[in-house]
């Protein structure tokens, strides 16, 4: 089964990317993993992002008409770029990466701070950058 990994930081841009990935997965029979990077500061913060990811996954699956089991969340420690690049390897073994154009951290026109452009520069598997309406 093909796996599509989506960078998910709970921003509107990431949500749009997840919706696109789910629609794509519905057409080609893929599974979707919403991947959230846990940074330095997030450690020890209240709340459980895995629980939040599970709720988002269910919503995304329902919106695309997918079985709930075909969209799931995953956590990994690191900066967003490194975490997304690692999705090409086990345990996720994604064959496609999907990101939004801008996350919480982006600065228009600059490579610095743009996860999408950093991933595009270093990705070893195909990457889709989903524009926000």
């Amino acid at each position, binding site marked *: 089964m093909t796996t599509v990994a989506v960078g998910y*930081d709970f921003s509107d841009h990431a949500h749009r990317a997840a919706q696109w990935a789910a629609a794509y997965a519905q057409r080609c029979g893929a599974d979707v993993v919403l991947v959230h990077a*846990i*940074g*330095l*500061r*997030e*450690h*020890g913060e209240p709340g459980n992002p895995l629980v939040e990811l599970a709720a988002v996954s269910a919503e995304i699956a329902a919106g695309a008409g997918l079985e709930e089991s075909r969209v799931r969340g995953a956590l*990994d*420690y*690191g*900066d*967003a*770029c*490194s*975490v997304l690049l*690692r999705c090409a390897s086990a345990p996720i073994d994604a064959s496609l990466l999907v990101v939004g154009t801008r996350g*919480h*951290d982006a*600065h228009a026109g*600059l*490579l*610095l*701070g743009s*996860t999408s452009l*950093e991933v595009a520069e270093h990705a070893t598997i195909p990457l889709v950058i989903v524009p926000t309406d």
Partner: protein
Amino acid sequence: MLILGGPGSHEGHEEEGHPERPERVTAVLAGVGDLDLAGDLVRVEAREATRAELIAVHDGAYLDELGAFCYGGGGDIDEDTYATYDSYSIARATAGSGLAVVDELRRRDAGVGLVVTRPPGHHALAGRAMGFCLLNNVAVAAAHLAAAGERVAIIDFDVHHGNGTQEIFWNDPRVLYVSSHQVPLFPGSGMSKEVGGPDALGATCNLPLPAGATGDVVARAYEEIAAPVLDSFAPSWVLVSAGFDAHRSDPLADLALTSGDFGALSHFAAQFTPQPGRLAFFLEGGYNLQALRASITDTLARALGEDRASEPPSSGGPGHDAVVRSAALRAAALEAAHDTKGTP
């Protein structure tokens, strides 16, 4: 004698509510003050690292972009890392103060160095800022020494793996990188099987530890795994990436060390210096100000030959099995890498 360096003015690098804050320097300097060094404290004047000195470890395009970003007003680089208008200048002065401290140690052939860095450096990659870090201060100093023919060991006991330092020297046999850190934790790297590139096999030595590990476990990892590697490498310099966020009171991680444990780690690092004036500490993390102050005092006291500890060493935590497993995984990774290279 303590040779003390830092960026001088650093208050311009600040973001409201961020744990990497100017008060950390105040705590470190208070910890130095607790040593009552009087005439044995030498302050080294800060200078900005030159582009040539920085480019030994960082991409020129990254330096250009970081400078432009800061002078354009700065902002958040990622969810952890910020920069202000002043940050590039402060980061260059921080890296430069590391160079000034090692040059002063070399000139005197005496003393122990302390570089009070802001921002810290060990997560900074050759071409990317991350994890609160803009420029990799310890790497800039190590590259400076290596270019002068020195064999440099970097011992990194920050609770987070120094992925930037590891990446920069991954395939450089002149620099040995040893790191103890909590796993799993940011930045997600630093596994035992990461042992260095083809030209520097074995010159990366990772000691991953589980949450809750205490000083006895960390000491065992250093004694059983790192000490033979350091002995074999025979460094002419030892630089320490001294993060104090492995302290049990630190809010950003879950190891359970005390200030006395940092003293023991300092004593361990000092053993591998071949002569006086070849040991320097570079501040990395540490976000509980009281713990930072006590840990700095105990670390420097032991490095300066004084046997004191504000808190007793800790013991009884988990992780002895992880140390045994780490040793086996490292040996297997080295064997596999040598087989791939076709060497015995």
